[in-house]
């Protein structure tokens, strides 16, 4: 016989309902906490971005470190500003309880409003331009001005000699600010290139810099290097197109980029740097040679090669400047600045500014000084938000983000 007892059933139902209720509360509570966590993370991202902007804006110029806050004491950002090649490297770390947000970026000086396309030292010679040469932007040249040239049965085909204002330059190029081979981190770990053959290596900018030693190896191939890495050699190196380099520094007396190489590198050399056909050094890439020598020092960009960033070829003695040369072949292009305390042979295109002591032109029959035939310098086509190389000392610089790493 089944005994009926409503009270017992009622308590049982009550128990089930309370269990359901309890589980509902627990689920809701977890969901609520999750949302809170998500909102806190959102705030952390906002605070990190704001503090990062503050660091760039106020402390982007000098190498320093410290802590910064914006509006909310919970989120403190510690920062370090150091050098990575030509550019400043800003590292920030924002911490809230167990969450940490890192941000690393290259920053550089924003372009000034001037539209100087060409600065040619006043060596008491006029600038002669022929063929389809185009100079767009303001120029500063010798007091002898600019003249149309007739070379190889070709006369100047343009309507105006210079599409901008013409000013008078000084006897010397504007003085460069102190540029060094900035290497960010003081701590370094050395690795041999042989150990990395066929491998891929990424190194964070929060870790000690890895120096990949390529001494005794001429051809560098089948390796992928990215981040806080310096590829270094005491001998000349040829970087093949099977090599992938991204944001790394290359230091070697002589560097050749083989046909169709593509990468982002800042090259620091002593003798020469050569970009073979189809090489693309993407932004922010650069070539820097500061050396005095009795031998030829050359930066050569062959047909269809491109460099976005800039080239600096400089030294101390005037005598050595006669041996320094930048050659931009027909079909090659540079986006950014070219600074050459020496000769510049311009047959290709420069979107940006050219600072040079003199121009040089070698034809099948002769050699001409201060001649440009078929070259182009277009400062007006350089985007206003392009971050140029920090060539000259400027107190009122406005720093902008180049690239997050």
């Amino acid at each position, binding site marked *: 016989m089944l005994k009926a007892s409503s009270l017992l059933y009622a308590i049982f139902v009550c128990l089930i309902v309370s269990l359901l*209720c309890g589980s509902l509360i627990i689920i809701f509570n977890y969901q609520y906490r999750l949302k809170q966590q998500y909102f806190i993370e959102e705030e952390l991202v906002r605070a990190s971005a704001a503090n990062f902007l503050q660091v760039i804006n106020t402390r982007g110029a000098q190498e320093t470190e410290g802590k910064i806050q914006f509006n909310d004491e919970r989120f403190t950002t510690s920062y370090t500003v150091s050098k990575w090649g030509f550019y400043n490297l800003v590292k920030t770390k924002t911490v809230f309880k167990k969450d940490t947000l890192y941000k690393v970026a290259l920053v550089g000086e924003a372009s000034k409003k001037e539209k100087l396309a060409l600065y040619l030292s006043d060596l008491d010679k006029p600038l002669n331009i022929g063929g389809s040469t185009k100079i767009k932007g303001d120029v500063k040249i010798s007091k002898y001005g600019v003249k149309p040239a007739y070379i190889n049965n070709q006369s100047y085909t343009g309507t105006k000699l210079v599409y901008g204002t013409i000013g008078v330059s000084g006897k010397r190029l504007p003085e460069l600010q102190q540029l060094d081979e900035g290497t960010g981190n003081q701590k370094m770990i050395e690795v041999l290139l042989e150990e990395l053959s066929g491998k891929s290596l990424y190194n964070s900018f929060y870790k000690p810099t890895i120096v990949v030693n390529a001494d005794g190896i001429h051809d560098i191939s089948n390796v992928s290097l990215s981040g806080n890495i310096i590829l270094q050699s005491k001998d000349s190196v040829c970087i093949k197109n099977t090599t992938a380099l991204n944001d790394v520094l290359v230091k070697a007396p002589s560097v050749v980029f083989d046909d169709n190489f593509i990468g982002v590198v800042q090259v620091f050399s002593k003798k020469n740097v050569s970009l073979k056909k189809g090489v693309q050094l993407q932004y922010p890439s650069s070539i820097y040679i500061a050396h005095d020598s009795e031998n030829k020092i050359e930066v050569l960009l062959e047909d269809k090669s491109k460099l976005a960033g800039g080239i600096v070829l400089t030294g101390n003695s005037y005598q050595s400047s006669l041996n320094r040369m930048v050659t931009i072949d027909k079909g090659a292009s540079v986006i950014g600045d070219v600074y050459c305390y020496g000769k510049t042979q311009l047959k290709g295109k420069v979107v940006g500014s050219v600072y040079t002591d003199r121009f040089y032109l070698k034809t099948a029959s002769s050699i001409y000084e201060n001649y440009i035939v078929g070259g182009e310098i277009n400062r007006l086509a350089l985007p206003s938000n392009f971050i140029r190389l920090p060539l000259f000392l400027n107190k009122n610089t406005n720093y902008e983000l180049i690239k997050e790493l």
Partner: protein
Amino acid sequence: MSLLRNCKLQASSLIESVMAIAIISICISIATLVYVKLLQSDYEIAYYKAKQKIALLHLETIEDQLFENETYGFESYTITKLVKEYSPGVNQVDFELQTKTKKETQHFLVKVRSIEKTK
């Protein structure tokens, strides 16, 4: 039928039944109250919409350099934008969102781009 005849169910007393119904109804009403309370304490849909809108307005401020105080009224929420100079070249932009139950301010820093004058 024979099965039912064999199973004898003893009836509960009236008081017992009334007590059972009372306990169940109290329990269910408490559960309903808890559920409603939970739903109320959660973020409204308007709050999420407002947050999304702020993200959009922030991007617009950066892109179009819109540094003016403004109030945006929507069906279920309002957003007030307040702009002040934080440091040279950087503006502080605060977005205050208000829904029926929540009020919150989000702070941003926005870089001021210098606009080149064309002749």
